[in-house]
């Protein structure tokens, strides 16, 4: 019985392969975008975990605020019984980007770290003695093939962008002889050990060292991606919902006949569930495969962003992870279930003698419109409530989601109202028919138009956010990078000689010295700043108390960056606890693109607090025409490598490059979402086309040519797309405002001014029209070629 019934159900798809394609493709696209984003996130997270694990990230560590640990302190701890293992860490700069170098002592390291050395074949002394050996993953090893570096051994399962070496070799490569980055505390300690304060009072214990911070820093980035993935999935679901609803409506007579011929309702429902499940699995597989391709295409940029912006160790290569493979299937099935629940419910309760004609789907129902309006109102209220009472990143995204959904649900009602007004103003009978007919068609198209609205609004919102950010960022760079040339000496001694040498050649030599420290319980940078007009004139202050620069120069006040100020609710006049004593906050400055908290302190105060601060970096003020001369002199007299001298232009270019790369992914997802929406319009129009014949046949019979009808159909699609685009602009701007004023503040800690870019909207509008035009072209051409006999059939036969 079921086989016969199944063959009848399946024969529908055989006869309407395009509908099947729509359904599968819609679901696959939705799944693809979602699982692609998930794959990227999973890859990045796995990388963090691997990197964190590789350097004992979950173990407690001993660190020294504002600097490295003296090796003598390490030995003193060991000689007192403390079971700690030293880690030396730093960046290796290669032509192919930087790699984190981790120096370990295999003899004292915890097993999960020491195990890396099992790759050594035989002579461990080659690992210990210069030139030493590096151990890295195959991909990282490629970047480390450099005559200036030790030979590289490739090890399976190594964390990306990370190389192990012996501690002594690491100290040598990083210029950190006698210094240690941190000490890993072993889980078992001997019976009696003296307290830490008795041996090394300058060290503090942190319960999980390593990369916990990294996950925190990059959380916002990943949340952004996830939100985009969800948006794409939502847009995809509109397609799936439309396709499934259509498929069910079209087959209603078949369902009725099957019931009349003796198929129980339960069996019919089960068969339909099985059918949908099969589609979901096929589409899921397709979607996950597509998602893999998307992720593989986007990951290099994401990895570059994460490395550049956060220093996170992520490679551009995608590994196969069953987690998101399974998640992709799950979301495909869940999506199908969500999209088909209503239709299935109706089928299960369908009386045998229900009207056999496709009806509800294509008919305007005032009740539905009211229902949508009510839902839109509720969602708008939720959105408003979230912004008023909620806080945090998740609340921000909830608010965005509610806002977008409300706008989408509102769309049919607004379009319907606009069309009604237009119909009233229409003079000719043809125009009246056009408007009325368009309005009647609206319910069938509204899902696709909602998808388009979402895609356009997201595009405008994100585009406005990115462009506003870029504009602000560029201006900020100009302010912040006031020095013409930035130089870094090899040693403190060389730096002193260099300063003496540069004195007569430059207008000013501004020290750029900094230490990394814990400020208010989180990692932060503390920069020393000289008392100079360059800062007074250029530094991008957001707020400041009077005479702030004098107070900073005197070592009485500090400046904090916006992200720190927002996080800790600091305003000028507050005090802030810093390593070495509490100071007053004199002002707040903008510091875009920096994930860390930052404190600006007078350079003398910095040296007083951190006597062993590296004093090698300087910004030079000098007339541009002297730039090359100074550069040449530094190379000639001090042997400074070109990498140690970067001019303003180069830094700006690099910063903007990092910035642009950060949003490459956003841009790509934007385009994909728009493409999905275009596809939604195409499928809606194509499926409607078949049902449109009875509506068009009378117009044809009354004297319109098929070509005229086709042109009207095309015009109708363009007009609806244009209307949707107009409505998308305000929605997109609200979205942009939320992104800039709520999400950015929560995610990154800075608030950006909003700028408007009408030209971008125009471009997007044209794109939307092109998409809608292309989507409606095919059905229109089909209509213009429909044989008159088929139109006649409308009259000869009810169906």
């Amino acid at each position, binding site marked *: 019985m079921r086989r016969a019934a199944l063959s009848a159900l399946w024969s529908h798809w055989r006869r309407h392969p395009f509908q099947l394609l729509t359904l599968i493709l819609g679901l696959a696209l939705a799944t693809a975008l979602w699982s692609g984003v998930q794959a990227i996130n999973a890859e990045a997270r796995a990388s963090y975990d691997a990197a964190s694990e590789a350097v004992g990230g979950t173990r407690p560590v001993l660190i020294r605020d504002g600097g490295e640990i003296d090796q003598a302190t390490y030995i003193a701890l060991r000689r007192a019984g403390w079971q700690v293992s030293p880690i030396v860490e730093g960046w290796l700069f290669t032509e192919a980007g930087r790699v984190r170098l981790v120096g370990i002592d295999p003899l004292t390291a915890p097993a999960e770290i020491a195990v890396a050395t099992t790759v050594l074949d035989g002579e461990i002394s080659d690992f210990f*003695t210069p030139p030493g050996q590096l151990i890295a993953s195959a991909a990282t090893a490629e970047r480390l093939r450099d005559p200036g570096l030790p030979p590289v051994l490739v090890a399976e399962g190594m964390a990306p962008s990370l190389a192990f070496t012996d501690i002594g070799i690491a100290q040598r490569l990083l210029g950190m002889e006698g210094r240690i980055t941190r000490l890993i505390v072993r889980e078992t*300690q001997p019976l009696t050990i003296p307290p830490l304060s008795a041996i090394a009072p300058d060290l503090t214990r942190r319960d999980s060292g390593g990369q916990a911070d990294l996950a925190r820093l990059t959380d916002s980035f990943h949340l952004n991606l996830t939100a985009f993935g969800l948006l794409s999935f939502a847009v995809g679901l509109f397609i799936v919902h439309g396709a499934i609803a259509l498929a069910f409506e079209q087959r209603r007579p078949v369902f009725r006949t099957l019931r009349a011929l003796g198929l129980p309702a339960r069996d019919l429902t089960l068969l339909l569930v099985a059918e949908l499940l099969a589609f979901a699995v096929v589409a899921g597989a397709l979607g996950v495969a597509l998602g893999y391709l998307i992720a593989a295409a986007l990951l290099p940029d994401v990895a570059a962003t994460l490395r550049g912006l956060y220093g996170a160790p992520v490679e551009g290569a995608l590994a196969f992870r069953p987690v998101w493979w399974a998640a992709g299937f799950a979301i495909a099935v869940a999506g199908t279930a969500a999209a088909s629940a209503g239709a299935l419910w109706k089928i299960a309760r369908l009386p045998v003698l229900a009207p056999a004609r496709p009806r509800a789907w294509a008919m305007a129902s005032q009740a539905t419109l009211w229902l949508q309006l009510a839902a839109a109102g509720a969602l708008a209220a939720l959105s408003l409530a979230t912004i008023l009472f909620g806080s945090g990143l998740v609340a921000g995204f909830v608010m965005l989601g509610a806002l977008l959904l409300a706008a989408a649900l509102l769309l049919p009602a607004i379009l319907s109202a606009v069309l009604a007004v237009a119909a009233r103003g229409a003079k000719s009978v043809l125009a009246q028919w056009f408007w009325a007919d368009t309005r009647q068609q609206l319910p069938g198209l509204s899902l696709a138009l909602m998808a388009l609205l979402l895609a356009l609004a997201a595009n405008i919102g994100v585009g406005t956010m990115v462009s506003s950010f870029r504009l602000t960022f560029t201006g900020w760079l100009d302010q912040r990078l006031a020095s013409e040339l930035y130089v870094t000496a090899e040693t403190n001694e060389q730096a002193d000689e260099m300063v003496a040498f540069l004195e007569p050649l430059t207008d000013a030599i501004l020290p750029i010295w900094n230490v990394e420290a814990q400020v208010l319980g989180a990692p932060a940078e503390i920069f020393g700043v000289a008392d100079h007009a360059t800062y007074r004139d250029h530094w991008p202050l957001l707020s400041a108390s009077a005479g702030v620069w004098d107070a900073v120069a005197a070592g009485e006040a500090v400046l904090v960056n916006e992200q720190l100020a927002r996080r800790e609710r600091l305003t000028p006049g507050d005090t802030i606890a810093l390593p070495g004593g509490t100071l007053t906050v004199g002002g707040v400055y903008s510091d875009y693109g920096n994930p860390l908290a930052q404190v600006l302190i007078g350079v003398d105060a910095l040296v007083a607090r951190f006597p062993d601060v590296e004093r090698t970096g300087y910004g030079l003020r000098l007339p541009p025409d002297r730039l090359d001369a100074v550069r040449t002199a530094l190379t000639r007299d001090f042997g400074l490598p070109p990498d140690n001298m970067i001019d303003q232009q180069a830094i700006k270019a690099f910063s903007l490059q990092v910035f642009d790369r950060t949003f490459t992914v956003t841009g790509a997802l934007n385009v994909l979402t728009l493409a999905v929406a275009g596809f939604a319009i195409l499928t809606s129009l194509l499926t409607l086309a078949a049902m449109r014949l009875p509506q068009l046949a009378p117009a044809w019979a009354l004297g319109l040519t098929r070509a005229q009808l086709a042109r009207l159909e095309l015009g109708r699609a363009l007009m609806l797309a244009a209307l949707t685009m107009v409505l998308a602009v305000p929605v997109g701007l609200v979205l942009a405002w939320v992104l800039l004023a709520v999400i950015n503040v929560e995610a990154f800690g800075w608030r950006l001014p909003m700028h408007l870019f009408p030209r971008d909207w125009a471009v997007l509008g044209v794109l939307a029209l092109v998409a809608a035009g292309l989507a409606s072209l095919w059905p229109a051409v089909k209509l213009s070629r429909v044989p008159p006999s088929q139109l006649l059939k409308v009259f000869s036969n009810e169906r």
Partner: protein
Amino acid sequence: MNARALTSLRSSRLSATLGALFLLLFTTLTHAQGFAGLGSTADDGFSVPQRGTPFTFPEDHGPHPDYRIEWWYVTATLTGADGRDYGIQWTLFRSALRPETGPGWEDPQIWMGHAGLTTPDAHFVAERFARGGVGQAGVTAAPFDAYIDEWHMRGPSLSEVNLTAQGTDFSYDLNLATDKPFVPQGDMGYSVKSGGGQASYYYSQPFYEVSGTLTLPDGPVAVTGNAWLDREWSSQPLSDTQTGWDWFSLVFDTGERLMGFRLRDTAGPDYTAATWITEDGDPTPFPDGAFAADPLGETEVAGRDVPTRWRVRLPDRDLDVTVEALYPNAWMETSFPYWEGPVSFTGTHSGRGYLEMTGYE
């Protein structure tokens, strides 16, 4: 005693948690093994013990980095104020990757510490590793100081030292002193380990009197007793067919001492050697075959059968005793596990001592 650490190495299995260390010492082993059959030939520039080389003290108390392997090995039989018997072991191993020293982390000398404490019903173990060159472990001859992490054996001289070690659940702090001479083993300190001629430099100080404190999970115990130091260095391991080692240090109630060992061989008869030491420290070495040690009973320890009752004979001195472990489960669960613990013996002679057994699988 040369053989024991090396056979330990051979019996070891790669364990994931100790992969790195295994590798270090595995290197030592494979290289040494490859040249074992060539007798006195040095490989990789390592020095090789030569017959007829007298010791010079205190210099020879310090390290010999041009030899592949070396140890400072203390065992003590103790009696507590509570009347119970105890034993402790304190060992500092030195293993050279190359026959030289170097500055800082480049130093190719690797150090390993083992500490054991045995009671009649428990056995405690601790283990430490360190790189030479950075000050985490090392030995100086005068004033004498041997250390790894917070463990030390510190003189003024090697005749009067303070000995400490601790693990997660035990510690000891003992004072060792003697006015008796150091006792060369074998042929004036040249100790042959096989018929093939493998040998080491080997001397002992079996006469320490000990007092101090053990700290056990139940609290501190004051102890007194005897301690025995073995100093040995070499670049050659056992021969390929020698699978393990049974080593006895016996202290007779009469005040005399006996060191005897048996090297088990798969290819032929076992190789044995012994030294009878008078109360004044005069040694009499005995050649292969004079000393005999035969298992009387086994105990299952850490999944293997280990002989913990022995019949030990030295017919030349009318010695025939039954040796019994104080605590049969004295298993050293270190990277290269072995059995080491205090014993007592009865028969023609009686007294206490230490037993070490390696290579039981």
